[in-house]
């Protein structure tokens, strides 16, 4: 009897542990691991950023616009994680879609004053990345492959979402 129970319990344990590692927070889905599209944009200070320079780190690539209600709601949480993960192997990168500098500056200065963002002024880079609506966040692995996408706004500085971010770079 014992010889049957132990393998059964072991397989049950294996099943649950596999599920636990495979389970993602609500609204985050795995994608196919294709190469991340190229991205070279200037930030609000006019400094250029090339995603290729982040090779070797995970990149939290967040697409947003000031007119998008969920983007506004989510931004303070992103500011919190940007501070938490500063100088870590997780780069928090924001891309504003199709808005001018004044609009972006006004928005960030009131909603998330510590944040910087890249400016996709004509929206073409965003089109190339094809986020599933705004806001959307792609996760690019250290090899430059798309691994996950977060759908809509998420409370990144809380519970399972914060755990997910920490898990990427542990």
């Amino acid at each position: 009897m014992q010889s049957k129970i132990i393998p059964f319990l072991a397989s049950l344990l294996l099943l649950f542990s596999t599920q636990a590692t495979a389970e993602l927070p609500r609204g985050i889905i795995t994608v196919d691991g294709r190469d991340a599209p190229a991205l070279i944009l200037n930030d609000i200070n006019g400094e250029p950023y090339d995603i290729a320079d982040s090779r070797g780190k995970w990149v939290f690539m967040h697409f947003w616009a000031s007119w998008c209600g969920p983007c506004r709601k989510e931004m303070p949480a992103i500011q919190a994680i940007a501070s938490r993960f500063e100088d870590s192997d997780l780069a928090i990168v924001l891309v504003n879609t199709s808005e001018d500098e004044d609009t972006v500056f006004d928005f960030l200065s009131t909603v998330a004053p510590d944040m910087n963002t890249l400016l996709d002024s004509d929206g073409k880079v965003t089109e190339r990345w094809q986020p599933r609506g705004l806001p959307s966040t792609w996760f690019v692995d250290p090899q430059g492959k798309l691994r996950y996408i977060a759908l809509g706004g998420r409370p990144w500085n809380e519970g399972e979402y914060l755990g997910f971010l920490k898990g990427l770079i542990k």
Partner: protein
Amino acid sequence: MDKDKIVKQGIFWLLVTASTAISHAAAPAKPDDGISRFIDKNLTVVIGSRTPEQLAAFYIGRGFNQASIDAITKMCFVFGMVENKTFDTLWLVLDDWKFYAADGSEMKRWKKDDWQEIWQKTGLSQAHQSTFGWTQLPESRDLRQYEHVGGNVVVEWQEKPFKLVATLKTGADKSGEPRIITVENLTCKAK
């Protein structure tokens, strides 16, 4: 109406829309507000129409030129939100959404290519075209578990109420039992 007021009104409606999208699951049905809600354990669908004032306010606030605002406010904008609450894929495919006029004829729907023709005539900038695109429902989207999508669908102007029959296919290969949502008495809201 002065520009500031228009912009503030636009922001107000934007926040109303956004909060609807965020809190829809908990919202009780309100049958008298002109918005149709279909809520069950598998999905949530919210359908209604926007007034030209709401549209003008939003797009003026984003800096759209007057010719483009004029083009937009001549059309009939229906907004929709669809949320998938199952593990199975739920498909939003706008070609499976049929709009019928009061006489039973199928109504024209404006698609991305139609809008590009209009923007060429009105001289709308690429950035504003992109913004407009993000405010529309996508032509096709495989909605995953807990994913929702919201935006506008544009159809030809109707004086009389019209009907929407929206088919939402299910399953990764679209072979599952489809969900069919019918919304009667939609109206294009006049100025």
